[in-house]
């Protein structure tokens, strides 16, 4: 084969060549303008950093508005809060009063019905752990809050979905609302809720109901819309009234999707209730963990964190079990006696416990001397390990900081110093760097396409100046052009608007810190997650091994994930970096595997019969076809990374998350919301770009219509 680049480019059809050339000119102009701006920047302060006097007092206005709102509406919200408090306190009272074996028996019965005896056993063990570590009482307080907020979220979600699913007009309003509900960091809207409802456990209920609502709405809308027209018509022809059609045809047909929504909403509600502990108003398990973490008691926080982890797993598996059951091909026609057995057993335990509790006090309160609380042992072991391997861990940490995180944030031009890299930056290095970049770009243009070269130019420039060193105008220009070229002009405009929002609200520098951190973590996720995903797509055993780990990571309330990294690397940026990767890598793994496994068998067979080696098959056939899916995974990864970024403010990461966190501790609604919306904008723009690209690519490949 003598395939020269010329003959390759000749494959382009005239129209796509035309489109691609217009893109080329656009990029040429953008890059030249950028180069000029970068050259001018050292002498024009307003170019380097957004001028302070451009900042509009949006945060202040927001605060003033909040002040008025609080003054006017506080009594009403307080009243609502009191209403919510009634069922919550009642539930918490019952859960505290019930002897622990009774509660465990009820849970075990649910688990049994949902997914069989294995889950039931797991549930018993998990809850027993809470008993014997002495965390039963705070756990039950958390459960009480969650059990009130879930129905609220479901009700809210149900209502929203019902008015949305068949009205494109309402949909246009509701979808962006949901986007913001999911992407504005939870810490940010804790502030206004706190101002309106006052300190207290009700804040957790309200915040988690809001946070848990979007997954319910989205799944339910999809479920209701996906009911097949044949089924609906047959319902109408059977003489269904509109009400009957909705309740007896649409809802049952959408049930399995709705159950997925309920599962996701449950996990979100738990996660938020735990996070709400940060305002420290209730004796729940989230508060226990946070408290221990703040005191740097790692053994204790690990033990308590495990409670949350187990809690999440039990709730997740049980609700998943019910969801799978509704999807099962056929219900089991088990005899009534068999079906009733778990409930009867649970009831028997409840009755027995209630009868004997007055005599046997250990049924109500686990005696302290029976507690198993190995915090000291863990702390000692930890001390030993960190002392023993301190130089190794320091090396790992510093290498990641100096050679990876720092260049992305402040660029090689500043990151290279005798202190970090062991030598100072000489002018010839800069010239060599520029020359190398130019050579790679030119080679790329000759061997692949001009797009590759544009990518190289952008990447090398970025690495040289860093996120914070790049003139802001250049950043906005390049990123918005990417959005425009990759998705469409609307997304480009959205991007422009979003970044200008950061400028006029004065959060530009924090935003750049967040972008740098997020970018670094996402790159690692893509690389590592992609490799794991490829491996899992080739081996069922690996896939089966990884799946439960992914499930667990994904259902984990965010700040539990911080604990293990905090133990080894203490407070700081590196800990945040690892925690973000641990949480955000999951979608990359999942979507890569899913995408690769989804490549049609016939395509693989055709390629194999043409003599593709396994490596060629992967790189030339499977990965290109799976790329749209992988991009969707990347999209999710970015969303997860941003969500985690806010939480890592707890362990000292900088950027918008930190701003939100500080605003939260100052009850500064304006600053919190501004920074929160800043993060939401980053998330939404990224989402539109990646989704836009993925959808277009899938259409081009004929994977969707």
């Amino acid at each position, binding site marked *: 084969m003598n395939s020269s680049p010329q003959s390759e480019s000749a494959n382009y059809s005239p129209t796509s060549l035309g489109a691609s050339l217009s893109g080329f000119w656009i990029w040429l102009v953008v890059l030249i303008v950028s180069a000029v701006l970068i050259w001018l920047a050292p002498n024009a302060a307003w170019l380097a950093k957004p001028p302070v006097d451009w900042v509009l007092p949006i945060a202040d206005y927001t605060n003033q508005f909040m002040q008025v709102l609080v003054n006017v509406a506080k009594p009403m919200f307080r009243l609502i809060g009191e209403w919510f408090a009634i069922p919550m306190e009642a539930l918490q009272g019952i859960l505290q009063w019930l002897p622990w074996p009774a509660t465990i028996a009820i849970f075990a019965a649910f688990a049994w019905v949902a997914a069989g005896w294995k889950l039931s056993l797991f549930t018993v063990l998990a809850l027993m752990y809470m008993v014997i570590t002495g965390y039963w009482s705070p756990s039950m307080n958390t459960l009480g809050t969650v059990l009130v907020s879930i129905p609220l979220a479901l009700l809210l979600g149900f209502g929203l979905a019902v008015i949305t699913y068949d009205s494109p007009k309402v949909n246009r309003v509701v979808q962006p609302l949901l986007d913001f509900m999911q992407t504005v960091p939870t810490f940010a809207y804790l502030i206004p809720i706190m101002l309106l409802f006052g300190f207290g456990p009700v804040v957790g209920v309200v915040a988690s109901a809001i946070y848990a609502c979007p997954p319910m709405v989205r799944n339910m809308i999809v479920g209701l819309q996906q009911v097949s027209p*044949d*089924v609906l018509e*047959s319902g109408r022809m059977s*003489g*269904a009234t509109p009400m009957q059609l909705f309740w007896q045809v649409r809802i049952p*047909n959408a049930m399995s999707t709705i159950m997925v929504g309920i599962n996701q909403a449950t996990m979100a509600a738990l996660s938020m209730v735990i996070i709400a502990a940060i305002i420290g108003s209730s004796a729940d398990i989230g508060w226990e963990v946070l408290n221990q973490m703040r005191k740097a008691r790692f053994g204790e926080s690990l033990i308590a964190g495990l409670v949350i982890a187990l809690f999440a797993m039990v709730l997740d598996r049980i609700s998943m079990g019910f969801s799978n059951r509704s999807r099962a091909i056929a219900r089991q026609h088990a005899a009534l006696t068999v079906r009733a057995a778990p409930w009867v057993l649970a009831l028997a335990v409840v009755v027995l416990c209630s009868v004997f509790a007055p005599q046997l006090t250990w049924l109500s309160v686990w005696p302290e001397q029976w507690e198993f609380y190995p915090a000291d042992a863990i702390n000692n072991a930890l001390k030993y390990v960190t002392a023993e391997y301190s130089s190794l861990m320091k090396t790992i940490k510093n290498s990641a900081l100096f050679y990876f995180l720092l260049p992305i944030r402040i660029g090689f031009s500043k990151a290279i110093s005798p202190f970090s890299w062991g030598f100072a930056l000489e002018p010839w290095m800069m010239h060599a760097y520029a020359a190398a970049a130019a050579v790679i770009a030119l080679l790329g243009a000759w061997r692949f396409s001009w797009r590759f070269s544009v990518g190289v130019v952008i990447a090398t420039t970025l690495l040289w100046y860093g996120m914070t060193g790049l003139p802001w105008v250049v950043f906005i220009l390049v990123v918005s052009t990417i959005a425009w070229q990759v998705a469409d002009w609307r997304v480009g405009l959205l991007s422009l608007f979003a970044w200008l929002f950061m400028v006029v609200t004065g959060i530009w520098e924090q935003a750049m810190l967040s972008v740098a951190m997020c970018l670094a973590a996402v790159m690692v996720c893509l690389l590592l997650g992609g490799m794991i995903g490829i491996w899992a797509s080739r081996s069922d055993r690996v896939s089966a091994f990884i799946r439960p780990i992914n499930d667990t990571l994904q259902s984990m309330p965010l700040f539990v994930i911080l604990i293990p990294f905090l133990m080894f690397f203490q407070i700081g940026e590196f800990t945040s970096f690892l925690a973000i990767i641990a949480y955000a890598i999951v979608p990359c793994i999942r979507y890569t595997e899913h995408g690769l496994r989804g490549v049609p068998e016939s395509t693989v067979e055709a390629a194999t019969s043409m003599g593709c080696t396994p490596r060629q098959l992967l790189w030339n056939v499977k990965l290109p076809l799976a790329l749209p899916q992988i991009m969707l995974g990347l999209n999710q990864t970015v969303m997860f990374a941003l969500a985690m970024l806010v939480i890592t403010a707890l362990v000292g990461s900088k950027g918008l998350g930190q701003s939100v966190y500080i605003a939260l501790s100052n009850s500064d609604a304006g600053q919190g919301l501004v920074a929160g919306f800043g993060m939401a904008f980053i998330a939404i723009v990224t989402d539109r770009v990646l989704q836009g690209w993925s959808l277009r690519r899938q259409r081009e490949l004929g994977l969707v219509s």
Partner: protein
Amino acid sequence: MSTLKDVSGTHSAAESSVKISCRSVWKVYGDNVSQRYPALAGQHSDPAALRKALLSEGLIVAASDVSFDVRSGEIFIIMGLSGSGKSTMVRCLSRLVEPTAGEVLLDGEDLLSANDAELIKIRRHRMGMVFQNFGLMPHLTVLENIGFPLKLQGKSSRERVARAKEVIELVGLEGREDSFPRELSGGQQQRVGIARSLAVEPDVWLLDEPFSALDPLIRRQMQDEFLRLQTLLNKTIVFITHDFLEALRLADRIAIMKDGQLVQLGTPTELVLNPANDYVAEFTKDVPRDRVITVGELIENASSDVPVDAPRIASKTTLDVVMPMFESHPGGVVVDSEGVTLGVVTPARVIQALAQHQSSS
């Protein structure tokens, strides 16, 4: 040829009353149809001109000035390629699709003026419909699916089960009462769909490509069963198909649609022997003529020389069935209708008819 047409008039359904009547039904899709259609209809009184105007505005004309009558107890088939508007038409008859203009009469009453409550009542008691993809409720068992229309009417569980069991027996699904749709084969699922549509004892039975999703062998078997059911139940049937051979097997009359227009309406024989245009001829060209022409259309007056031992056959018998008989009865066969002798058909007449239509195609 004119003689053939006359004879087809003796069709049994001809004398019975009209059950459903479509009068100039239009269905137009597109933005703002409710305003744009009347405006254009006001400018163009001629249907052809109106259709042209609608199309030139970028509207989708799914049904265009369609008129036909369906007689009580007949199997009326609507045939056409995919996208020709068949589903739209059958849905106009039940108002699953709201016609843009025109009239639909059911037993002489205006269906389009019925309000929601009346419409639900009509669907609950007078119409049954079968869908191409079955439209079964996946969360209900066979028994529950079939009893579903009765449940919507508020019938008691005992009544539902009793009636469902009756129709289950009718369609031959005994033993599968407690299965879920996904556990059944396609053919069995459609039996459930048929049973459900019959559960309310409707007198109008609408079937939209009921057998198109099935394998050819199963399809054939279901067609036989369908004919058997119809001899038992004698419903008024509107049956949609894109398969001309299916239409031939089942139809009393066939309406052929193209691009939303009714192109030709007639008995299978009429369509085969006198296609109105190339579109119809294209469907009919591969149909063996001896399988379409019936002896009833070739009757010669009973003359004195009728062979005494000649077999007596029904007037609806097709030539492919009759021809082997000529081997032992070269003098011809006697055609009768319910015991009354109509006349004789001779080999010579048969050859003449076949030769005539062979050349015309």
